[in-house]
């Protein structure tokens, strides 16, 4: 009996906590819920207007439809698929990754990588004239007398050496 006296208040506290964590069922989805999906869709009849900000009567009907489907328990993906089935894939703000749509995802990164490669090659090319240890392959004697460029060296280097000689 003594145990029961202690046990009852503890159970009551837990019961109160349990009730406190229960959420009220809201049958009407909020505007935020609707717009969260609507902004991922585009108006099929207006030019480049996301559904959440589209002011036309048709868009209002589609937002009402989203609300209706949410209230019916549909998931975001199901609603988006419904819109695709009804109005085509062009209503999606993000094109599906199928067929030629892949170009949208592949071309920009490929072009970026190609650009980086071109840049790297361009910036690396002047260093090609350097030796493997990073020192100039055209060395200058310690006494200051310039060494003639070795046979087969670049004309440009030869001309440069000539100019330096003239200045000295």
């Amino acid at each position, binding site marked *: 009996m003594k145990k029961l006296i202690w046990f009852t208040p503890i159970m009551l506290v837990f019961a109160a906590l349990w009730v406190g964590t229960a959420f009220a069922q809201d049958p009407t989805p909020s505007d935020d819920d609707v717009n969260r999906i609507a902004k991922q869709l585009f108006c099929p009849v207006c030019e480049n207007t996301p559904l959440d900000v589209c002011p036309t009567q048709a868009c209002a009907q589609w937002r009402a439809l989203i609300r209706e489907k949410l209230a019916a328990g549909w998931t975001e993906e199901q609603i988006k698929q419904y819109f695709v089935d*009804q109005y085509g894939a062009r209503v999606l703000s993000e094109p599906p990754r199928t067929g030629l749509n892949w170009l949208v995802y592949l071309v920009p990164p490929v072009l970026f990588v190609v650009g980086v490669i071109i840049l790297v090659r361009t910036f690396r090319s002047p260093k090609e004239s350097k030796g493997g240890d990073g*020192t100039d392959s055209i060395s200058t004697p*310690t006494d200051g007398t310039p060494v003639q460029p070795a046979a087969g060296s670049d004309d440009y280097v030869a001309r440069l050496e000539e100019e330096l000689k003239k200045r000295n």
Partner: protein
Amino acid sequence: MTQSNPEIAPQKKRGVPLWVQVLVWAGLIGLLGLVALGLNRSQQGTVQVGDKAPDFTLATFSNYEYNGASQVKLSELKGKIVVINFWASWCKPCEQEAAELEEAWRAYQPEGDVVFLGVDYVDTEPEARGYLEKFSITYPNGADLGTRISQAFRIKGVPETYFIDRDGMIQYIQVGPFQSLDQIQSVVDSLKAK
């Protein structure tokens, strides 16, 4: 004495390999081709008079079936004159011609050689049904699922109406609403007379 005196190795020009160049150019030309195709398609107007009507299957709304069938295939209507009207419940100009289209349908329905099809363009079904009831429309109607039919006809808006002859060729296109019942009947009668 020098700090270092290696011989300058002959500079080998490092170009982009030929196969990479070919690949890049082929890719660029391919992309340009795709862009050109897309632009060409977007610049095209609607299908033209004299063209063969693009075939399609229309899934009808319940209570708006064609001869009890929930699907109508245009090619199966060969031998009949077909009037295809693109509309939407949100389209105000469509309301101007709704009653006339229904009146024309009721006039030709008993003969059986003229079929009216309503294609509901990017719409929601409850509103579409409300529109059909409001104008007491009885001819077969259905949604343009995935906008496949409107894309095939390359419509520029609603309302647009296409008159198809018995051979499946487009004979008249009405862009915008009809002004009168006579306008509809004169086109249909001219096709019936052929």
